[in-house]
C-alpha cells in the first residue's frame, strides 16, 4: 500500500478558451486535501480528468497505488464521488437507489447505507426530485460512504448548503478519515469549510497550481503585514510573497510571520485566513 491515495503529475487539459497547465499534487493517505480557487480556475476540470469523465491531454494519474494502465473499472468500487447538485436520477427514491447500487458496487454495504439514511433523517421512499438541495447532497455523501470507499473525490460538495447541513457533511468527512487508509480530495470555493477540515490546501488559479501547502503552515506561519507607503518602500522584496494596495495601506503576504515580526518590529502583522491568502494571490502583485 503506497503512501499516497492519489498522485497527479503534470496534468494538462486544453480547451479553446482555457488550459489546465501541468498541475501536480498528491493526496496522502489519511488526509483531506482541499482544492481551492475561484470559479473557472480549473478545479472541476482537474477532478473530471482524474475521474476519467474528460480526457486529459498530458500527465500521469495514479489512484490508490495504481497507474492508469493498471486500472480497471473495479478500482472505482473504492472511489466515492460527489458532484455539486444532484447526482442520481430524479425519479428514484433512496430505497430504489439501494437496488441500483447493490447491483453495481461489489463492495456495497446495504446496512451502512440505511443506517446513514436514518442517522441523517433522510426518507427511504421519497422521490429524489422532492428532496431539497441539502438532502440531495447528504444522500450523495451517504452513497459515497456506503461502498467501502478508500478515496472520496468531491467537487463543490458543500456549495449552496446552509451552515448546519455543511457542518453535518464536514463531520462525516472528518469521521471518514479517522481510518488512516481513507483520504479525501475536496474542491470548494468556500475556503472556511476547508479551513475546518483540510490537512493540505492546493490553490489553483487560471489553470495553474499557485501553491500546495499544509493548512497549518498557511494558518499559523503565513501572515499579512499591514503597512503604510513609507514602511512598504522599506521592506525587503524577498520577504514579500504578494502585495496589494488598498486605500491608504499596503497588505503584504509573508511566509513566516514570526520572523517577519522580528525583522520589522514596528509592523502590524495579522494571521491570514485562506480566503485572504487566496484573494491576495488573485488580486495582488508580485
Amino acid at each position, binding site marked *: 500500500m503506497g503512501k499516497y491515495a492519489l498522485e497527479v503529475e503534470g496534468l494538462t487539459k486544453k480547451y479553446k478558451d482555457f488550459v489546465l497547465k501541468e498541475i501536480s499534487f498528491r493526496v496522502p493517505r489519511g488526509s483531506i486535501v482541499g482544492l481551492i480557487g475561484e470559479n473557472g480556475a480549473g478545479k472541476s476540470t482537474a477532478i473530471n480528468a482524474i475521474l476519467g469523465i474528460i480526457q486529459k491531454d498530458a500527465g500521469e494519474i495514479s489512484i490508490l497505488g495504481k497507474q492508469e494502465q493498471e486500472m480497471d473499472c473495479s478500482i472505482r468500487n473504492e472511489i466515492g464521488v460527489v458532484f455539486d*447538485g444532484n447526482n442520481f436520477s430524479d425519479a428514484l427514491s433512496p430505497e430504489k437507489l439501494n437496488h*441500483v447500487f*447493490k447491483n453495481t458496487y461489489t463492495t456495497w454495504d446495504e446496512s451502512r447505507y440505511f443506517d446513514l439514511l436514518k442517522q441523517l433523517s433522510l426518507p427511504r421512499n421519497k422521490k429524489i426530485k422532492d428532496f431539497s438541495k441539502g438532502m440531495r447532497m447528504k444522500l450523495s455523501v451517504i452513497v459515497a460512504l456506503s461502498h467501502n470507499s478508500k478515496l472520496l473525490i468531491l467537487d463543490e460538495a458543500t456549495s449552496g448548503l446552509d451552515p448546519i447541513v455543511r457542518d453535518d457533511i464536514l463531520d462525516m468527512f472528518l469521521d471518514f478519515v479517522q481510518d488512516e487508509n481513507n483520504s479525501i480530495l475536496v474542491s470548494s470555493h468556500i475556503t472556511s469549510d476547508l479551513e475546518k477540515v483540510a490537512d493540505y490546501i492546493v490553490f489553483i488559479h487560471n489553470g495553474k497550481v499557485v501553491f500546495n501547502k499544509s493548512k497549518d503552515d498557511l494558518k499559523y506561519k503565513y501572515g499579512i503585514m499591514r503597512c503604510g507607503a513609507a514602511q512598504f518602500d522599506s521592506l525587503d522584496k524577498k520577504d514579500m510573497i504578494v502585495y496589494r494596495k488598498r486605500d491608504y495601506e499596503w497588505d503584504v503576504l509573508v511566509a513566516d510571520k514570526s520572523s517577519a515580526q522580528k525583522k520589522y518590529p514596528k509592523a502590524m502583522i495579522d494571521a491570514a485566513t485562506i480566503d485572504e491568502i487566496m484573494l491576495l494571490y488573485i488580486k495582488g502583485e508580485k
Partner: protein
Amino acid sequence: MKGLLINNFYSSIGNIKLFLTIVLAVAAIVLVTGNPTAQELFVYITITALSINAVVSSRKDAISNWNKFEITMPVRRTDIIKSKYLSYIFWLGVGTGLALAVTMVTMLVHGIGNDIYSMFALGIGISLFVGALFFPIAYLVGTDKSETVLIISVLVAITLAVLILNVLNQFISYFIVRMAAFITIYILFFAFSYVITLRIYAKKEL
C-alpha cells in the same frame, strides 16, 4: 451492468403512466369499434411509444447529472451503452406484447382484420429505426438536446421505414421474403447504430 439496467427501468417507469394512458385510450377505441385503421395506428403507436419511453429517460439522466455520475461507477462505458440499447429492446418488447394482446382480442371480437405481419413488421421497424438514429445522434450532440433529436429521429424513421418497404415491394414479390429482408435491414441498422454509439461514447466528454 445489472445496476444500470435497474436504474434505466426505474427511470423509465416514471414516464410510463403518460404513455400507457395514451395507449390504453387508443386500445379502447380499437376494441369497441374494431376499425382496421385505428387498429393499425394502435400497433404503430404502442410499439413506438413504449420504446420511446426508454429514451425519454436519457434527457432526465442528463438533467439530473446521472449520466456523469454513472461514469464514475465500477462499470465500463461499453456497459452504459449496452444497458441503454437493452432497455430500449425491453420496452420495445413490452410495447409489442401489449399491441399483440389487444390485436388478438380485437380479431377474436371483430373477426380477422388487417395483415398482422406487415403491421407488426412496420411497427417494430419504425421503432428500431428511431432507436438506431436517436442514440448515436443524442450522444454526439449531447443528451440534453434529446427532445429535438427524438423528434428528428421519429420523422426520419417513419420516412425511412416506409421508403424501404416500398422499395422492397418493387423488387421482391414474395411476401415472406420481403418481410425477412425488411426485418434483416432494420436489425442490421440497429446493430450498426450500437457499434457507432459505442465509438462516440468511448471518447465522449461530459
